[in-house]
């Protein structure tokens, strides 16, 4: 019913009151002539109802023909509204301007939302998009979005798939990271390759899949020594050349020294702090506080807050800069404190050491010492690691 009422309002209709001794006669005539009347209400010697603006003249003509008094009591709908405001050109101009402004502004991106997988930083993607010109206030077309997508896929190798979906003035960027193939232990059949030692140590394990081993378990080796040869001697006395592939494990040692000055200077924040605020709208910064950048050594912290409306981000940002004055202060550290810090550094080093492939700590020896105002921690590590390094032999036909 709403649709019917809406179309009646759109095309316009009038309420009428018909005065006659026999109003039913008008009903019969009207319906016989195909007039569309509704909300008809019969009263004593009168009839009320509604008629379309298009059929109003016909309804009046029929009433006149039947000798009845036809009176329009009220007018409804858009045509009457337009007629009423036809002299107010400013209203129409405002309406057109508003509609045009709404159409133009809806072609701009107001808010960019990035859904990046764990391996890809959202901030980096935002910066890359900014470099390509896609930021708040970007005027978009279908072609520009497709072009942008291709450019970013070429620019960032980590992305395997991406889409930019536009919802009104919001752009949602969806990304998928690339799955790299697992590197297999491949060998090049056209090249002759040896495996040599990368460090000094004692062999603890040999596993040769291609080539012939030149060392044995328990042998001591030097850096650069041949471990697996690409020249293979067969039982019949002949020799062949091939690329070599092997896993050689050896016991190695490594000495690491961690140092800390006993008297150190520390940077501390003072109470002197300045707060600067600015309003950012479509990349235009409007300062809200009237003060310049302070002189001297300051620590600056920037926070950016986005304005929201009904949970929807708007392209309005409030940028707050906190400038805090910093100064240096001498601090004397106790031996206990220095030991603690050095121990923590050593643990951190060991964590990163074991993150490397095929490196395992077998033993460690620690010693603390003081020298020239510094406190030292010397750690001697005994490791088990993969020591093989590929070395290709130059041949006449190799590129």
């Amino acid at each position, binding site marked *: 019913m709403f649709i019917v009422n809406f179309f009646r309002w759109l095309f316009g209709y009038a309420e009428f009151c018909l005065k006659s001794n026999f109003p*039913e006669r008008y*009903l019969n005539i009207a319906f016989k002539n*195909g007039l569309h009347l509704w*909300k*008809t209400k019969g009263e004593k010697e009168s009839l009320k109802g509604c008629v379309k603006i298009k059929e109003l003249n016909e309804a009046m003509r029929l009433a006149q023909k039947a000798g009845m008094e036809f009176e329009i009591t009220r007018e409804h709908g858009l045509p009457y509204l337009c007629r009423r405001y036809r002299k107010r050109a400013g209203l129409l101009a405002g309406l057109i301007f508003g509609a045009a402004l709404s159409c133009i502004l809806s072609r701009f991106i107001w808010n960019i939302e990035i859904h990046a997988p764990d391996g890809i930083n959202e901030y980096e993607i935002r910066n890359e998009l900014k470099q390509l010109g896609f930021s708040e206030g970007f005027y978009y077309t279908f072609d520009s979005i497709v072009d942008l997508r291709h450019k970013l896929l070429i620019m960032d190798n980590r992305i395997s798939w991406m889409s930019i979906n536009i919802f009104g003035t919001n752009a949602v960027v969806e990304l998928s990271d690339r799955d790299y193939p697992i590197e297999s232990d491949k060998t090049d059949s056209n090249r002759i390759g040896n495996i040599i030692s990368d460090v000094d140590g004692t062999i603890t394990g040999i596993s040769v899949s291609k080539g012939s081993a030149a060392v044995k378990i328990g042998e001591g080796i030097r850096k650069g020594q041949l471990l697996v040869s690409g020249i293979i001697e067969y039982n019949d006395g002949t020799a062949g050349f091939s690329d070599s592939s092997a896993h050689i494990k050896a016991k190695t040692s490594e000495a690491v020294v961690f140092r800390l000055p006993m008297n150190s200077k520390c940077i501390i924040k003072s109470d002197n702090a300045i707060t600067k605020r600015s309003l950012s709208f479509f990349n235009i910064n409007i300062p809200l506080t009237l003060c310049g950048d302070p002189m001297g050594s300051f620590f600056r912290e920037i926070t950016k807050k986005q304005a929201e409306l009904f949970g929807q981000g708007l392209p309005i940002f409030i940028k707050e800069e906190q400038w805090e004055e910093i100064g240096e202060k001498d601090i004397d550290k106790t031996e206990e404190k220095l030991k603690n810090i050095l121990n923590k550094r050593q643990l951190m080093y060991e964590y990163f050491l074991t993150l490397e492939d095929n490196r395992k700590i077998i033993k460690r020896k620690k010693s603390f010492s003081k020298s020239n105002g510094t406190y030292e921690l010397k750690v001697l590590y005994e490791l088990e690691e993969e020591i093989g390094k590929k070395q290709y032999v130059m041949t006449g036909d190799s590129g």
Partner: protein
Amino acid sequence: MKGRLKNLFTVDNEFLNKVPRYTMQMADNREVIFEGCKGVVEYTDTSVKLNTGSTIVSFDGRGLYIRRMTDSDIIIGGFILSVEFIM
């Protein structure tokens, strides 16, 4: 042959007598769809009288109104209390 063709295209009088001149379909006592109306004789909010050619059908009630009307059909809405056939 001629007699057979005549029989084929002759409509039985009995069949014609069975076709109603007007039909009424009532939804409770709130609405009536009337087919075969030849005009409105009386129209007030308490009474609507319809001409069917041979009979006048009178609907009495409260708040009666014509919802929709064409040259042969009419829909009457309102609270219908009685239906009367005036011959």
